[in-house]
């Protein structure tokens, strides 16, 4: 059976691959623990209470970022678009860092700050949703620069200890997500389902807005829905894990290279592929120099940049 053509077999194959990767990643850590037969109660608790929730968080966040990236790319008609392109991550970072400054004692405040910040950013972007793709992108890039400036200002105001925290948050951290795992998995599944429902319309949008409309798609409606959906998913991913770069940019392109550009398969593959990539990156982040940890956002960028550059050269050839 050709898994490129059959979404059910694609789904099943990717689910199996994800489970296999998760199982291996679960065993890896400071000490290798066989996930199928932990030798002690202690090991079993390390597996299921420490590593497993973190793996699931990585999977859900990675999948959400990749889905949001695929959506932003088709919404903006630009292959370089990614989940943070319209400044949502910047405003979330401003929110998170503000929370660190003004409520330094409450751990949950950082997530709340990020979530509120992300939605402030989305609300501002929605004002520009009626602009054409090119101008919307331009507005987003300018907004991102604005949020970056505000962020620099806040960091300048932070006491020394806070600077380290702020940087750690901005580089992405899956170790202390304030969001429950079931919520993240639910959002992942709901996002994939929404994407699949919209997939035929999204395919038509690849032909440009006029062609899509002439084929019966309500384009203004779809654009607004897509902007809201992609931004909301990005906001949740950022709330859970801070800003993790390149997953949202590279994974959809990799999947297009492997499976073609129709959205049914691209979205299924991105939801799983982004999840697997982030599980691997996070496992590397916590094992390479264990017991210390590398920031996961740094690893995804180190993996992502060469892959993407190779992709650009390949496209050009």
């Amino acid at each position, binding site marked *: 059976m050709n898994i490129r053509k059959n979404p059910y077999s694609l789904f099943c194959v990717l689910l199996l691959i994800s489970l296999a990767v998760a199982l291996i990643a679960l065993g890896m850590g400071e000490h290798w623990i066989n996930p199928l037969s932990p030798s002690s109660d202690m090991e079993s608790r390390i597996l299921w209470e420490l590593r497993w929730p973190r793996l699931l968080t990585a999977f859900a966040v990675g999948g959400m970022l990749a889905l949001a990236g695929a959506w932003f*790319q*088709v919404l903006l*008609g*630009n*292959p370089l678009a990614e989940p943070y392109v319209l400044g949502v991550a910047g405003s979330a970072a401003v929110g998170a860092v503000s929370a660190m400054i003004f409520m330094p004692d409450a751990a949950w405040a950082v997530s709340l700050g990020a979530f509120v910040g992300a939605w402030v950013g989305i609300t501002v972007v929605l004002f520009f949703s009626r602009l054409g793709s090119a101008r919307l992108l331009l507005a987003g890039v300018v907004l991102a620069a604005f949020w970056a400036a505000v962020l620099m200002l806040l960091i300048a105001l932070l006491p020394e200890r806070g600077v380290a925290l702020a940087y750690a948050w901005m580089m992405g951290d899956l170790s202390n997500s304030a969001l429950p795992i079931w919520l993240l998995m639910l959002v992942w599944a709901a996002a994939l389902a929404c994407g699949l429902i919209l997939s035929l319309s999204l*395919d*038509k949008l*690849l*032909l*440009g807005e*006029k*062609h899509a*409309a*002439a*084929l*019966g*798609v*309500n*384009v203004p409606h779809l654009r607004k829905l897509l902007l809201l959906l992609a931004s909301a998913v990005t906001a949740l991913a950022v709330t859970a894990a801070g800003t993790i770069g390149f997953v949202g940019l590279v994974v959809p392109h990799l999947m*297009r290279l492997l499976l*073609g*550009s*129709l959205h049914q398969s691209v979205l299924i593959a991105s939801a799983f592929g982004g999840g697997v990539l982030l599980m691997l990156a996070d496992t590397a982040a916590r094992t390479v120099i264990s017991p210390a940890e590398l920031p996961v956002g740094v690893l995804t960028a180190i993996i992502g940049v060469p892959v993407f550059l190779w992709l650009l050269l390949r496209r050009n050839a």
Partner: protein
Amino acid sequence: MIQMQALRVQRGDKQLITSLTMQAKKGEVVVVLGPNGAGKSTLLLALTGLHADYAGEIILQDKTLPHYSHQEISLQVAWQGELPPTEFGLTVQQRLEMACSGKLEKLAQALAYFELKPLAKRALGELSSGERQRVEIAAIMVRDCPIWLMDEPTAHLDMRHQVDCLKLMKQEAEQGRLIITVLHDLPQAAAIADRVVVLDGLGGVEVGLAKDMLTAKCLEPIFHVKLKGNGYDLMPAYQKEYHGELYEKA
């Protein structure tokens, strides 16, 4: 089939068409002529429901356009215009499947008509503009809508495919479709037009039978070009102006 009543079309501040009233019936080929920026493409977009900045009425079958959903219009009206973007690597086959809504025998027929079978698996970005234009004409074929709106269908095409395209348009009209098309080439217009709409670029419109409209007297003041000949031979007189008598008369 499609009726325009006191249609006034604008884009931003610019008044493109001040008042157009006409009725186009099935089986007809209507050619829209006019200088660049006169509003030919915008008129087609308005008729597709993609350009809402107009006053007056557009009546499709028996209802005005705003009474239709996007989906309903797309079953009646097929539009061919700018070449679609190529960034995301769609193939010819995929692009046509989006247009044909499951009618695969139509798709095979269109691929064969425009000799696109060898290109079916190729990405649109790997094709030349002429090949991509053939894909777009094939896409309007597979739509199977009673009304075709075509914006410069012969652009980018080589001579043989221009001829094939015009032949297809005439045949389809004879089988009962309404075809409204923008063209720039006067002999091509003469070859297929039943009626002609001329936009003068200043808001004025004239509608008439092809044989009355495709004359030097009617078109010279609008295009500001010296024309020679009539009907099928109507063309700009630029040869003699620049080149003298270099070639022998046929």
